[in-house]
């Protein structure tokens, strides 16, 4: 006598319910290309970092030059991102809520830092703010030197971060429901109260997202910074530049350590952005 045992029906890992073809090919191709271009090289970085070990990290990070570069990069990126976000919210407000001559042109111009190669932006900013430059000369007469110090880095990073700040809040400003403003007005709120208590707070998650994006981008920025920064070790030398310098000195471990720290920071920003958006979705129903 044989007992028929029903084999447990296994749910396929990937279930293709539709009739469309090409899933295997498309996914297979995409995954292999992703693996080759992105994952394999990043794996090489982490492999190198792990072979450097705690000791490698300790040696590199105990170097005051490295410490200064990392602190400078984090600090200036954060300040520049904050400034770009504040300016970006005001600019986005002007571009979406008011009509003025040339508005669409100005709107299109906001993306210039996305489109302009960083090296080009870098030399333009450096020439503009050089002691004999168009803006540098009058500033120099006031006793302010902008190039070859952290202020120059700040200017370059504001330039780079601005479109992130504007473009993340702009769609939300455009979607502000007129009824909200009217509701606040009927409740007796003065205009400034309406703006700062009713209209701006819902923009906060988007503004924070823009801030995080601008910060992450500024942290890794290289081309637009190095020309205006002057790259004086211990003064205006940023972390990405130090990676390049370590590489040219064949200090692969040093370069790797700095890169891993920057990468970790970038991933942390990615996580922060996701958390902000999840929080705001839960709180306000959408982003």
């Amino acid at each position: 006598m044989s007992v028929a045992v029903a084999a447990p029906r296994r749910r396929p890992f990937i279930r293709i319910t539709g009739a469309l073809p090409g899933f295997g090919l498309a996914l297979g191709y995409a995954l292999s290309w992703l693996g080759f271009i992105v994952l394999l090289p990043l794996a090489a970085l982490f492999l190198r970092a792990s072979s450097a070990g705690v000791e490698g990290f300790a040696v590199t990070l105990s170097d005051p030059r490295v410490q200064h570069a990392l602190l400078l990069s984090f600090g200036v990126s954060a300040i520049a991102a904050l400034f770009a976000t504040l300016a970006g919210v005001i600019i986005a407000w002007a571009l979406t809520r008011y009509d003025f001559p040339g508005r669409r042109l100005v709107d299109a111009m906001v993306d210039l830092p996305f489109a302009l190669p960083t090296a080009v932006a870098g030399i333009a900013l450096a020439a503009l703010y050089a002691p004999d430059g168009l803006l540098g000369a009058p500033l120099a007469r006031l006793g302010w030197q902008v190039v070859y110090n952290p202020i120059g880095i700040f200017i370059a990073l504001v330039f780079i971060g601005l479109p992130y700040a504007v473009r993340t809040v702009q769609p939300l400003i455009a979607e502000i429901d007129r009824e909200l403003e009217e509701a606040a007005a009927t409740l007796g709120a003065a205009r400034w109260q309406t703006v700062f208590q009713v209209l701006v707070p819902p923009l906060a998650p988007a503004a924070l997202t823009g801030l995080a994006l601008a910060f992450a981008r500024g942290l890794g920025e290289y081309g637009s910074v190095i020309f205006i920064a002057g790259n004086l070790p211990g003064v205006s030398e940023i972390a990405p530049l130090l990676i390049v310098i370590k590489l040219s000195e064949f200090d692969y471990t040093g370069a790797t350590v700095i890169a891993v720290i920057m990468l970790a920071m970038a991933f942390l920003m990615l996580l922060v952005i996701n958390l902000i958006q999840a929080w705001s979705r839960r709180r306000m129903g959408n982003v």
Partner: protein
Amino acid sequence: MSDLEPQRQRVYTPDSVVTEAPWARAAIIAFAAAFLALFLLLPLGLIFHEALSKGFDAYWQALTDPDAVSAIRLTLLVAAIAVPLNLVFGVAASWAIAKFDFPGKSFLITLVDLPFSVSPVVAGLVYVLLFGAQGLLGPWLQEHNIQIVFALPGIVLATVFVTFPFVARELIPLMQEQGTADEEAALTLGASGLRAFLTVTLPNIRWALLYGVLLCNARAMGEFGAVSVVSGHIRGLTNTMPLHVEILYNEYNFVAAFAVASLLAILALVTLIGKTILEWRYGEAISGRH
């Protein structure tokens, strides 16, 4: 009622009751205009001003210099290889992600976007660590006499890395929005899968595809940090336009530096114009919103 007494009433009649006062409006617009002029327009104008500061002949000479010409050639060549590679990847990835359901999808989208979060310098570094003489595969490559870093393949790889998400991130949300109904209709009408893709899917995504390619190309031609790390800066051989700008600038040859830079600035302007036209005319076809 006490709070309605006439002496306390402030009479004002703006055309809309819910907007900022005219002075606040003017101040905000003035701030935005001044900020953008100072931070964006002035640097842009300066590029052309500097490039032409010694006259058009000097400008033309700088552009026709053999090293400049070879930099322009290399930049075009790199973009011509990197952009199609990312185009094919973008279409394949978004086809799989948007038209099918599978576990780990959102993680895959995060991975596709990952290169945007990586510093360009780190992007260059990872290829040096992988393919360089001291790298993981370095000894093997040397044995077989394959040069990747400090040569064209390295530049192309670094460029592909930094421009990796451009096409895919335009297509994925659009194709998710469009769903699979159109393709399924084509299949029920007897079209083959390939034919459905070519005649139904592609026309649906063509403007978004063009948009992604435009942005991808601008970044590919302008990339500096990543390429700088892997190129080795060999004049006339592995120098792209942005790298050439750097060399000229560091040699205090400002006219030539800004002349080459002006070409890249024109590329940026053309990209912006093309992008803006696409957004105005085909905004819905790109964003998928109606």
